């Protein structure tokens, strides 16, 4: 892509990374033990489940939709996975998490394509449904990982390190690498972007909207399934209210990274950096002893500032450059981008 050399496009991909690097540069000044092994490990460990789901969500947002049900999916996957662990050990726990995520994603996609419910409402509805089912499954108390099973490999996923790097973070990096290949090196990835920038045009080019939706929402579901494995092996317990408000955090990370909510444009590097930025900021605020109430205020403020910069840039960019950016300089689309 030739057009990606302009300053604006550079900012799209690397802007949030630049902010992250800046923050890391000042972090040791503000928090002396920021780069201690313990602290660095805990930041990376903590970022994993948010990051893995955000990688999947980047595809949904790039296709012009978003999935509000991921919080409910995470709760349901966790509960089902722990039930699976109790019934059949490690293998069943992993299969149960992934299968539940996939099923949730396929259900969302079918509601959207078969019943033509808009993604916003379909996934808002299934958010209630998934949480509700999780509550029913945990009616006799939250599901927990039994402490006497501490020797089993599954229980260790969240706490293990490989050469000093936390395993959840390794999984997250792997997921992002796979997602990058999928988005940038396969026809499917190009179809997702094409559909996001103009569903009509994509349909005329022979892209099946039904199959695309199925793929994107299944991908989100599976990413939640994978994230579940790093999540429950950290917190060891799950019920219906697990990770309340998770969906908003995930979407915030994706958008903060520079993926356009209007669809057609995606940056996984941006999502990755945004996830780390959120985790680092969180960690700094915690270790500075900032009360959690004020942490929320700071995080919200950062979100607004980042998006303001983005909004101003889009507004003052030369007319046409936005359209070029969306189409990747290949197929100019006349008409309003709604």
């Amino acid at each position, binding site marked *: 892509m030739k057009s990606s050399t302009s300053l604006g496009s550079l900012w799209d991909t690397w802007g949030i990374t630049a902010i992250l690097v800046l923050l890391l540069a000042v972090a040791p000044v503000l928090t002396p033990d920021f780069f201690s092994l313990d602290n660095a490990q805990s930041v990376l460990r903590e970022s994993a489940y948010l990051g893995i789901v955000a990688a999947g969500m980047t595809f949904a947002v790039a296709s012009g939709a978003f999935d509000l049900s991921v919080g409910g999916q995470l709760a349901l996957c966790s509960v089902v996975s722990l039930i699976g662990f109790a019934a059949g050990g490690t293998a069943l726990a992993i299969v149960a998490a992934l299968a539940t995520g996939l099923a949730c994603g396929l259900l969302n996609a079918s509601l959207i394509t078969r019943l033509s419910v808009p993604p916003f409402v379909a996934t808002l509805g299934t958010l209630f*449904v998934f949480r509700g089912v999780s509550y029913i499954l945990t009616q006799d108390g939250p599901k927990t990982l039994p402490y006497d099973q501490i020797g089993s490999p599954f229980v260790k996923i969240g706490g293990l390190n490989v050469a000093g790097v936390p395993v959840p973070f390794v999984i997250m990096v792997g997921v992002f690498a796979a997602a990058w290949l999928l988005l940038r090196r396969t026809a499917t990835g190009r179809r997702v972007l094409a559909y996001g920038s103009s569903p009509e045009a994509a349909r005329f080019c022979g892209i099946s909207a039904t199959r695309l939706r199925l793929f994107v929402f299944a991908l989100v579901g599976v990413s939640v399934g994978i994230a579940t494995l790093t999540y429950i092996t950290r917190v060891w317990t799950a019920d219906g209210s697990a990770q309340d408000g998770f969906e908003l955090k995930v979407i915030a990370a994706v958008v903060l990274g520079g993926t356009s909510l209007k669809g057609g444009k995606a940056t996984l590097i941006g999502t990755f950096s945004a996830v780390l930025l959120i985790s680092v900021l969180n960690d700094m605020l915690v270790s500075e002893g900032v009360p959690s109430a*004020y942490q929320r205020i700071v995080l*919200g*403020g950062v*979100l607004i500032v980042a*998006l303001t910069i983005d909004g101003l840039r*889009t507004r003052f960019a030369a007319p046409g450059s936005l359209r070029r950016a969306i189409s990747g300089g290949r197929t100019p689309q006349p008409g309003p981008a709604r």
Partner: protein
Amino acid sequence: MTAVLRRSPLLLPLLGTVLVLAVATDSFLAGANIENVLVAAAIVALPGLAMTFCLAMGEFDLSIGSTVSLAGVVCCSAIIAGQPAPVAMGIALAVGAAIGLANGLVITKLGVTPFIATLATLVIVRGLSLAYSDGHDQIVSSAALKYLVGGRPLGVPMPIVLAVVATAAGWWAMNRTRFGRWVCAIGSNREAARVSGLPVDRVRIAVYVLVGVAGAGWGLLISSQLQKGNGQLGMGFELDAITVVVIGGTALLGGRASIVGTVLGAVLIETIRNGLNLLNTPPAYQRISVGLLLIAALAIKGIRRAEARTMPVPAPEAAR
């Protein structure tokens, strides 16, 4: 009759639900129970009415649940500090207006998408509310505050009185004033509205202020019910408010709004919740049924639209 049903498609499911509950339970049709349902519906209809304007513009306000909490906290702590209740309520409503104004300015002047801007204020306002209340309940006993939910002018519960007045005002503003037409025009095509010379930014800001004030009013009603303010109140309420509007038939992408639909949506949801309570269904099933109801409402509409497309002579659809 068919004309009424076509204009308010929610009437049929509502009547069906009422019929089922009347048969399945002994106590649903009792006067006190019907009143409970209507009071609950009135409380959620009030913010729903304001949110109808927001959705009609093709936008969302996700921050309303946090406004509910902050308004309650501000009002209760003002009463504790010795302010008379009406003054405390006024301050709370002003705080709601300020949140709405902040949303509107960030969205229109800084160009941040409404979804993200109000998501950020959702987090910030929740933080303010937790910080201000320090995580503690602010318990008050104020007759004036209690009157908001418990009062009965002419024997009618106060929330119902408020909701009827707000519905009438909302219907008038949406269907009989320039403001309502502008809101729908912005929702169906913002650029066209701007080019036609409508004060697009000012209308958008006004709608966010309206939602902010309604959110604060919602907070006062909740605090009046519980006789306390708390930083944790109102979590997830934003989805309730949006659900009521969407079930009521307001177009999600803007351009069309149904005030009566929003009120019927509130009544339908609260009827179902009440019925499930009477049938001793655990809260988990209530969530599931609200979710299913939301999907069903939109699915029926989607199917109907798909059928309309295949009809030989397309009916001229308003403004879309």
